[in-house]
Each structure stands twice: as C-alpha cells, then as structure tokens.
C-alpha cells in the first residue's frame, strides 16, 4: 500500500539585519565599489540561509566576545580581510551588526573594535537600530 505523506511547505522567513550605529554605514561607504558589491551579495545570500552556522564567511569569536554571543562575517576586499562583528537580535531571525572593521597581520583596525563591540552588545537597549535593505535589483 502506498505511503501517502503530506509534505507541508513552510514559507521561508528571511533574516533581517540591523546596524547598531551610523559608523557601520561609514565602514560600508569606505569600502571600494567592489567591496560594497561583495558585501551586498553576501547579505543577500546569508539572508536566505536558515542556519547561521551555514552563513557564508561566518565565525564565532572566542573569549569574552563569545560570552556575549558575538560572531563575525569575514570577506576579503580592498586587499584586506573585512570583518563585520554582530550578534543575534531578540526577535526571530534578526541579527545586529555591531561594528565594521578590518583585520590584517592578526591585528584588528581600529584596534579597540572588539572591546567596542562587546560594549555595544551589552548595551543593545541604547541602540538606534537601522535596518539594512537587501536590494534584489542589483
């Protein structure tokens, strides 16, 4: 006898990303055109990836950062590793970018970016979150 299984297709909920502060936009605008395109493409693909463990270029940080749940997105642009530090939001499928920086020769630039990100992670209530739009037309 045939086994009739009913397959229920759940609607795909995409991730939404928020900037913690204006300096993330400044970091973005400081990237070259190619760097911005890479970041936008990464944003698009990761928004459609259910599990953050499968996010492209995503790594959990260690130490104090790990305790507050900070991860980073890594991509290469303009001759250096670009790093975007972030954490999950309280709402389902939301993530907050805490700080944008670069990483070269084991050194983050600006050098205090990890400390700043930890401070921001602990002070989310004081943030003026700004949602990033994902442009499907470009």
């Amino acid at each position, binding site marked *: 006898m045939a086994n009739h299984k009913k397959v229920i297709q759940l609607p795909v909920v995409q991730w939404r990303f928020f900037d913690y502060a204006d300096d993330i936009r400044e970091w973005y605008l400081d990237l070259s055109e190619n760097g911005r395109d*890479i970041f936008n493409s990464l944003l698009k693909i990761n928004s459609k990836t259910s599990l953050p463990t499968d996010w492209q270029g995503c790594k959990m940080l260690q130490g104090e950062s790990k305790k507050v749940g900070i991860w980073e997105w*890594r*991509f290469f642009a303009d001759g250096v590793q670009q790093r975007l530090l972030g954490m999950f939001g309280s709402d389902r499928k939301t993530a907050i970018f805490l700080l944008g920086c670069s990483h070269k020769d084991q050194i983050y630039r600006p050098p205090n970016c990890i400390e700043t990100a930890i401070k921001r992670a602990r002070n989310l209530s004081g943030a003026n979150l700004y949602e990033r739009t994902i442009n499907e*037309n470009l």
Partner: protein
Amino acid sequence: MSEQSTRISRLLQNQESRASYINSKLAVLVPAQIRALRLRSIDPPMPFQKDLARESGMQQSRISMFETPGASNLTLETIARIAAALRVGVVLKFVPFHDMLRWENSFSPDTFDVERLQDDEAFVNPEGERINENANQLDGLGHSLGNATGAMRIGKHASFESINPSTSQNAIGA
C-alpha cells in the same frame, strides 16, 4: 539619484565598474557553492575543510580561502580540481546581466545541491536512463488514454444533461 540608478548608470558607462560587479557576484557565489556542496557531500562525507582538501589534494588553508567570499581568484584549473573532488561538473556560461542577478537572487545554500557522479544515472548509465524514459512515456500515454476515456464518459453525461432542460435549469438554479 538613488544608489541603484547611479550604479546602473556606471555599469552602462564604465568597463571597470562592470568587471567589479561581475567579480563580486563570482566572489560570493562560487565560495557559497563550494561550501554548500562540501557540507552536503555524503559519499564521501566532507564536514570539514580538511576533508575536501584531502579529496582535492590541496592544503586545508587553500580550501578555507576558496570558501571565504572575495578571498581567492580561482583559476579554471582549480575550479576543475574542486569540482572533481566534489564529484560534480561545472558549466561556465556567459549570460545577460539579468540572468546573473536572477541566479544570485534564487540561490540559497539551504536548497542548493547537485547530483554526484556516482548517482548521476543519466551520465553513468545513459542506455538504462533512456529505457526508463521510454517506460515513463508509455506510462504517460496510458494515463492520457485513461483520461481521454474519462473525458468521453463525462462528455456523454454532459450531453445527456444538455438535452434534459429541466435538469439543466435545476442545475443552474442550484
């Protein structure tokens, strides 16, 4: 002028801008495919980068680079080696910009997978695949004939209804 219209105008006018745009799509979509295929590989399983490194005869650090967006300008030779290790083929195809964008918009690592060589019946056993196709076609033909007979039956019933005005009116009234 919006960011989008500025960018499109630059793409239309500037070769460097076009190259940069195309490069950025490849720089994210190629690593994303490599990573998704590695994680979905069952035979052999490749949960770690070192597994793909072993299969492709490359260093783990290189695999890490290939999976990092923007980190590596992969040569065609390297792409072929990675595809071979993942047991899949590659199509490099020049397309209009809108096709490139559509492919990017539809891509998700959640759903992306490719039939591996050992499971690729159409390639490994094309004769058997053709027999299966013919059998499916015959099966389809049988269904069509069955449906046609059904349609004839419905047709008879419909004509009976149409010559009985009272039933038809009742039907309309209902």
